[in-house]
């Protein structure tokens, strides 16, 4: 599904100074697998997620990333989305005046068009989204509000997961979706993600905390530090990190 080889990336700051953020990432996520990427602040986890989605602020200096045999770096962000990549943003942006339902319908039909599927008409779309919202225990009022405008932190994250359920990606990347969630919202988000889990899809969960992984149980856990994956293991690695912190790993470097 997702293959990343020796990926290096940097960013230019305001003084045009180059700062390296990713220093050779290798990652292989197979169909049906859930991977968790953990690590301290500034280790490059979110950068990796954003680069995979096509954020142009970062410059990829070396390496490659493939999704289902497609070279991601050749594709515009919207083509990556069409190819089945979905990023649940850490900070979903507000789009004032744009109706949530209108936005989602445009997104779903745009992606369907790329996948050579006929567009959903208003009735089919409404039926579908109402079902998904029920799954997520979301209020239907969401649909008539502007995209993320005036949403609470938890509402924004639930909205991301709702979008994910509607777009049915092959690869979903969740960027700190658990941050700022209370326990009820966390469970709802996890339920949504788990409902998408099947042998055809892969999920990459970027998180600081083990907590989310109690609900979305990963097959593989990676630890990222200073732009590199320094350790990988099973789900028990997350528990170990919870207990010991990241310090013991850093010192072995």
């Amino acid at each position: 599904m997702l293959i990343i080889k020796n990926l290096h990336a940097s960013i230019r700051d305001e003084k045009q100074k180059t700062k390296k953020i990713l220093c050779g990432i290798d990652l292989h996520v197979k169909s049906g697998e859930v991977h968790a990427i953990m690590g301290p602040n500034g280790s490059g986890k979110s950068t990796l997620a954003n680069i995979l989605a096509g954020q142009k602020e970062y410059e990829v200096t070396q390496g490659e990333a493939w999704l289902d045999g497609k070279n991601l770096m050749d594709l515009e962000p919207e083509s990556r989305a069409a190819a089945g990549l979905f990023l649940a943003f850490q900070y979903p942006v507000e789009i004032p005046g744009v109706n949530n339902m209108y936005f989602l319908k445009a997104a779903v039909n745009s992606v369907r068009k790329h996948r050579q599927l006929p567009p959903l008409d208003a009735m089919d779309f409404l039926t579908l989204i109402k079902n998904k919202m029920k799954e997520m225990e979301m209020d239907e009022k969401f649909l008539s509000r502007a995209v993320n405008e005036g949403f609470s932190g938890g509402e924004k994250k639930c909205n991301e997961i709702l979008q994910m359920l509607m777009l049915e990606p092959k690869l979903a990347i969740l960027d700190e979706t658990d941050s700022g969630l209370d326990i009820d919202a966390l469970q709802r988000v996890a339920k949504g993600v788990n409902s998408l889990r099947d042998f055809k899809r892969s999920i990459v969960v970027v998180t600081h905390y083990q907590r989310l992984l109690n609900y979305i149980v990963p097959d593989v856990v990676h630890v990222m530090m200073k732009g590199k994956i320094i350790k990988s293991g099973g789900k028990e690695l997350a528990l170990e990190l919870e207990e010991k912190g990241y310090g013991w790993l850093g010192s072995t470097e």
Partner: protein
Amino acid sequence: MTNQYLKQIVNKNYQYGFVTAIESDTFAPGLSEEVIHHISKLKNEPEFMLQWRLRAYQYWLTLSPPRWAHVNFPNIDYQNIIYYSAPRVKKDGPASLEEVDPKLLETYKKLGIPLHEQGRLAGVAVDAVFDSVSVATTFKAKLAEAGVIFCSFSEAVQEYPALVEKYLGTVVPYRDNFFAALNSAVFSDGSFVYIPKGVRCPMELSTYFRINAANTGQFERTLIIADADSHVSYLEGCTAPMRDENQLHAAVVELVALENAEIKYSTVQNWYPGDEEGRGGIYNFVTKRGACRGKHAKISWTQIETGSAITWKYPSVILQGDDSIGEFYSVALTNHHQQADTGTKMIHIGKNTRSTIISKGISAGFGQNTYRGLVRVLPQALYARNYTQCESLLLSATCGAHTFPYIEVKNPTSQIEHEAYTSKIGADQLFYCRQRGLSIEDAISMIVNGFCKRVFNELPMEFAVEAQKLLEVSLEGSVG
């Protein structure tokens, strides 16, 4: 990649830029008392009209062009403008659509303006002004049944001189400003509306202005009178051919709302904006003002300004009647080298008068967009209220947004609120939309439409969709 797309769109033609080859009666360029006598005579005007025009002209001669707006353009040579051009007709004017020159009907068809009464916009009555004259007015019979007068200004002068004399120049006197004086002296046609007491106008009224002839100025005048307890919704649209020379459009619109009357005036302005280098385009220097003369009167201006090389206008409301209401909703877009200096004036005179100003400016390319607004509360306007919200969206690094609010409050019981902000279209918003599978152009149009939604909601439904499309065409791919 964005730039490539931008270029592609820039080279797209202004779709209303064609010229109609039609025989016209056209004056030689230049302005003099003789020209004014000539216009007045052609229109068979009563003496009071001629005298009024001449007074306006004499006054205009004493003025020099104003320079205070935040716009740049070379001096206009007023002796080089043609002040009258009309499609040639065999007799006094067409009595029915059958007599209108088929070329003209074809022109309006191409513009998407139905002059046949069974059209796409079958619920809208249209007065079509072509260069200096009105060529057709639809649905007159149906409107007459309700007692509504909707006709060209020339016809109103012939048929209802008393109404014209009573109201002409009472809201925008010829002494108001340079362009109002010029318009008063030479205006050749326009629309006239009178809604009698207690009548709710049964359909939308609309005037469509088309400039066709070269080197010609269009000077039209619209007068709308809503008598007590009446209601009318009126829409104005405009286009012009593509030419390398600038052309002047100096119109005056006067609205009078008596007790409990309501006038809703909407504009979708799409004059030729000039090319991507800033060559050509219309100078749109317009004076629009409404007076709420009676208690509980309401005047609401909604404008979508996407065309013209330079737009310079401030649709305003004089709130004389107690409890009267003034509203101004505006979207002004400047792309390439377009300049807009627009806004409103709300003059509070009556007690408990209320006004709302919602202004949205969008700048792209090298466009310069200025909001200029005055809220004046006189001492006797106790408990007046105003709410102003003024927002600008920047789509390129080379465009500009400017805000000049003037607020004068002369009593302690009034309440004024002013909110303003400027934002650049967010790279993160665009990325968010694209990550969800939307193309750049869909994402921009969605974000911009969201930004304008509050104003679009004020447009009559038939036109809200058109306005949205117009904005898309004017903007596509303009993020640099």
